[in-house]
């Protein structure tokens, strides 16, 4: 029983992993905090977007439209603080990553279903940002929107397991 010798490759990986983790957390925090702030600024606009998905009973839509931005904001805030806290309270950061990944998977699935059904709708994700940045302009949801959501899922994947 003694100190385990660490190879050069393992040493490099051990140095890279915290950096990759912090960058992924920051990226997802930026995305989800921005989306949440936009929805919280115009709650009824987001409710209309939820209704346009035509996937929920109308009685349930207001509750989902109220809860979702709160979950996004909290998950984004936890990821943001975790990016600067290293491995302290890591279980909460991993939990936030699971929530973010789950939301992205759900959005991707919902968009895909509605595109296959031919339901016309806006994504409803980044409306506030879309006022200033053409990329986030809330036009009709397309397969490119699905691709964008899948790309956002990539930085969440390394965060789903606590670092050893």
């Amino acid at each position, binding site marked *: *029983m003694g100190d385990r010798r660490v190879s050069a490759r393992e040493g490099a990986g051990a140095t890279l992993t915290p950096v990759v983790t912090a960058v992924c957390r920051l990226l997802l925090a930026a995305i989800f905090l921005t989306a949440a702030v936009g929805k*919280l600024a*115009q*709650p*009824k*606009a987001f*409710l*209309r977007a939820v*209704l*346009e998905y*035509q996937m929920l009973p109308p009685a349930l839509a*207001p*509750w989902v*439209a*109220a*809860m*979702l*931005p*709160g*979950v*996004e*904001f*909290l*998950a984004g805030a*936890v990821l943001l603080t975790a990016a600067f806290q*290293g*491995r*302290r*309270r*890591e*279980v*909460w950061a*991993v*939990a*936030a990553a*699971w*929530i973010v990944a789950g939301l992205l998977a759900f959005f991707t699935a919902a968009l895909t279903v509605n595109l296959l059904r031919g339901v*016309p*709708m*806006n994504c409803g994700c980044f*409306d506030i940002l*879309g*006022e200033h940045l053409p990329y986030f*302009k*809330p*036009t*009709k949801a397309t397969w490119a929107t699905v691709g964008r959501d899948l790309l956002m899922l990539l930085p969440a994947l390394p965060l789903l397991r*606590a670092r*050893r």
Partner: protein
Amino acid sequence: MARRRAAGRSRSVSLPLAVLALAAAGSLGGIIYNVVAPRGIFRPAPAVVPPPPAPPAAPKPAVHRPKPKPGDGVVKPPVVTPPPGPAEIRIIDLAEARRLLDARGATFVDARSAIGYEFAHIPGALNVPFSDFPAAYAREAARLPKDAPLVVYCTSGSCDEAEITLGHLKAEGYRNLMHFKEGWNAWEIAEYPQEKGPGPR
């Protein structure tokens, strides 16, 4: 034997419990926000105020027939009216849209989907969704005279639903088109009059 304890690993909270706790806390925070915030989902909507009644029609001036002058009766060449040019879509702001509503100076066209329209719309607006213009126009054409001033709007200044509908209307021959670019979001934030439901049939 070295006692290894992974830094940062909480022994008191499991991952599933942490996920549930974050989701519950976030959900509760979202609900509380929408109860408390002035524009929250669970806040009562501003009272639906009907638009003011139309102003009384101005009395028609008396017809004055001038006495015939020397030279009257000479055939004058007809006045040639130049053909109408391409329709220029005028962009109007929130204040002008409100003024037009109060003065009944234009017909409003809501280019959003039926769901968004029924949720709430400008009083008297007709729903011509961008996604199904042919069917919607066939339904509303009788209420959209070609020479009537039309104000088209959608959700906000950064969506393209109104522009799509304006393009269709322009192709149909409408020449007096206005785009209320700030859209329903600005109207709702200003707490201007609104209607709910499917609209006139």
